[in-house]
């Protein structure tokens, strides 16, 4: 099971956190500080796993961002690397060559996509296409609601003129 997912920039800024196990706010801050200290200082050629408090943290760096997932000791680290890559590919397709800024300004989108990929710390979907389709469908629902609202407010505006 994945206990949490973190996206940390090379400067140690947190870009996304998703907790599947209960951690208090205090613990979360501590975890973030500890792990960014460990992971950001590791050399480039080293393996992508860090043993930490009886768990394993699998991380992978894409450009300036570190994607980290914390898993149980008996979980398959190599598979987690695939899941991270899977997520990055979906982000890439969604944003069209994703960069850190996309994830900063559209952080909620990154969360939506993650929610289509993982629930309860387990993988939900192995098809990138399906995830993309589901996200697109929900985005269009939001767009439709927006348009409807703006047309209503236009009507109200005209009526009250």
């Amino acid at each position, binding site marked *: 099971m994945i206990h949490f997912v973190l996206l940390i920039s090379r400067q140690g800024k*947190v*870009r*996304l*956190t*998703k*907790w*599947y196990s*209960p*951690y*208090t*706010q205090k613990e979360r*801050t501590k975890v*973030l500080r500890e792990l960014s200290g460990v992971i950001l200082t590791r*050399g480039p*050629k*080293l*393996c*992508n*796993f*860090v*043993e930490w408090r009886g768990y394993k943290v699998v991380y992978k760096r894409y450009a300036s961002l570190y994607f980290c997932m914390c898993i149980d000791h008996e979980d*398959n*680290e*190599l*598979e987690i*690397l*695939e*899941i991270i890559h*899977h997520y990055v590919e979906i982000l890439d397709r969604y944003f069209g060559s994703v960069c850190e800024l996309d994830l*900063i*300004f559209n*952080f*909620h989108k990154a*969360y*939506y996509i993650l*929610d289509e990929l993982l*629930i*309860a710390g*387990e*993988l*939900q*979907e*192995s*098809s*990138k*296409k*399906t995830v993309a389709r*589901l996200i697109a*469908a*929900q985005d269009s*629902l*939001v767009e439709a*609601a*927006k348009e409807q*609202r*703006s047309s209503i*407010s236009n009507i109200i505006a005209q009526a009250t003129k």
Partner: protein
Amino acid sequence: MNPFSSETRLRDMIRAIRACKTAAEERAVVRKECAAIRASINENDPDYRHRNIAKLMFIHMLGYPTHFGQMECLKLIASAEFPEKRIGYLGLMLLLDERQEVLMLVTNSLKQDLNHANQYIVGLALCALGNICSAEMARDLAPEVERLLQFRDPNTRKKAALCAIRIIKKVPDLAENFINPAAALLKEKHHGVLITGVQLCTDLCKVSPEALEHFRKKCTEGLVRTLKDVVNSPYAPEYDIAGITDPFLHIRLVRLLRVLGQGNADASDLMNDILAQVATKTESNKNAGNAILYECVETIMSIEDNGGLRVLAINILGRFLSNRDNNIRYVALNMLMKAITVDTQAVQRHRATILECVKDSDASIRKRALELVYLLVNESNVKPLTKELIEYLEVSDQEFKGDLTAKICSIIAKFSPEKIWYIDQMLKVLSEAGNFVKDEAWHALIVVISNASDLHGYSVRALYRAFQTSAEQETLVRVAVWCIGEYGDMLINNVALLDIENPITVTGSDAVDVVEVSIKRHTSDLTTKSMSLIALLKLSSRFPSCSERIRDIIIQNRGSLVLELQQRSIEFNSVIEKHQNIRSALVERMPVLDEATFIGRRAGSSPAIVPTSNSASLNLPNGVAKPPAAPLVDLLDLSSDDVPAPSSSGGGFLQDLLGGVDLLPGLNQTAISGTNEAPRTGTDILLDLLSIETSPTQSSSSITDILSSSQGDKSPVASLGEISSPPSLSTRATSAGADPMMDLLGGFSPNPPMPEDNGPVYPSIVAFESSSLRITFDFSKAPGNPQKTTILATFTNMSQSIYTDFIFQAAVPKFLQLHLDPASSNTLPASGNGSITQNLRVTNSQHGKKSLVMRMRIAYKFNNEDILEEGQINNFPRGL
């Protein structure tokens, strides 16, 4: 009005925050935003809610408190529209966790949304439930989730399946409701549903043996078929990763098969073929393929034995181990740890490679490999493995040395075939990484050396040589110093030379050099220095020729700021200077340390061992002093009965020494006060002596006196032995050690020279008078300090016989402070033919208000009979 285009938008806020140059600036921006959001929340305007929560989520990610937005999330979730619900659920998952009370309020909304007609809204609710549901919510909403497992839309089914995992983890009792729906999911074709269904079954097996039995019976064949289909499926672009169709599904299927096959031969038989196929056919040039192989190997190792498959699996691990990719090597080491219980021989074959991994540059790999090597060690390979590890110790990273030395020491202790090998290896470790060796390890080494009587000479010579090259390793120095102290004579005489050794020429002064270096080195900590002092004392007797030089070194520590060192050096100096005749008895070789006790203590929950690190001088007296304290106790032969006590003459002398005991120098008192409890119980006489509440310092001094006066007809050593039960070793050592030294301290005179008679003159008094004894007090005061009085007590024997072992003791009330200087003698000639004098220094804190009062007790031997006289002195002149 359009909620997406007014005031500061989310985007603007993020820009503003990113533009901040300092943390303070950022805090200000965030504070302003939070204030605006709170205001907006108070207005209860539904149009801005959406954006407020989005902002709060960003602020939350930066680590600021955002609890005030929690209720807004609930309102968004309760709204009818999809966009509001979407952000509301996201906020719920981000800003809350399962322990918050607020979460209970959302149960109802969740229930409604789980029954919503819009499948995306159902999906949102499932996602939130799966990520943060509590046990209560799990109970309330389990029926909804159960129903959704059969929902027509596959995307809802897969979400429901993962939700069910969360529910059964929170409430395992609910597992049985999900067994049948979960089994139905295994027949699905949709990969998402299949993946989540397999995962659900795996988790059900973990919480419910019933579920395991059910799936094993009903589903094993089906799962094997499904896996076969996936493995043999043609290219499917949607699921293809590196030429493999859906590795995620592969992995989950193999994992579920493992759970089903574990401990069941029939089920294991069913899956043998397909596992063999996966193990042989999977491409291992990409990570995805390796992930499957890894899972497959683990399954093969876990299910019931099939020789052929195991060989296959071990071979895969062998390939992994020699892979250039660090990740693959890491998982290989991980797997080999599990494989070792199944097939130790097969893992042993890879020993060389694993040893290489211990030397890897990657900390994660090194750690894994070291754990594995530790498991691989046995009686037959301990020698080469230890050799390798110790060689690596020389070049390893500093931060890895701690782990590495701990493991090496543990291996050596566990598997050493003979003592000489143990000593050799430990010496190597100490020379290489002595600073990382734990206290237990070097203590154990000393115990072993002490027990190997034929190796004493060998050990001390080896340590001497090691010291020449590695004097910077603290623990090596300690062991070396201890051994040189104990077996120094064997060092210079090449006693008990083994065939394998080359004789070395060491003079006594060379041996003293070693100890001198270690005591003078500024990096040596208190433990080392104390041990060195004791070693010096021992050497002063072993090498009489160096006695003078040793005394010089000891004297240099008389001014040490550390109480322990100061006290010891003063004591030892006196031993060397004045008491040659007991010295050799004092510093006899230690009795053989009891291995069983040591091991028992080590096995105990909290060994009384202090961390090796150079502890700050704050906790010196009771903390760091412990290890060297034990040698000191034994050194004085006070604690053990089986050791020959000092010969009777020596004992008598000790008794004499004790006779003269009067007072410790002030500096000892803190250390001594620790012994208050123990001796007091044993000595009732003291209690009434102390009936005038005395201050701690005085009571402590009186107590030390009691030690000698309670001896009666017992030998002094025995009576000292009795008090060897104080709580801590160090106090025991100090009290026992300090006592006999009292008189020895003659050379040390802390009191200022007698003041000239400038102050007011007070009449002398007769403090005590009986037919046989008279005590007179003469008073003098130092000018300018009226509180202080120096009393010169003169004792005169009026009887016809000589008094021996004469001791005068005194106690005063709290407002007074009393210092007794050593008496001029402890033998009082008969018929007033001479007298003993003794200085008492009294400080009266209530000078001018209260006058002096004192209780005293005199003990002496008269015709070999113990006499005890007590009395109170009230006739002090006024104004003292």
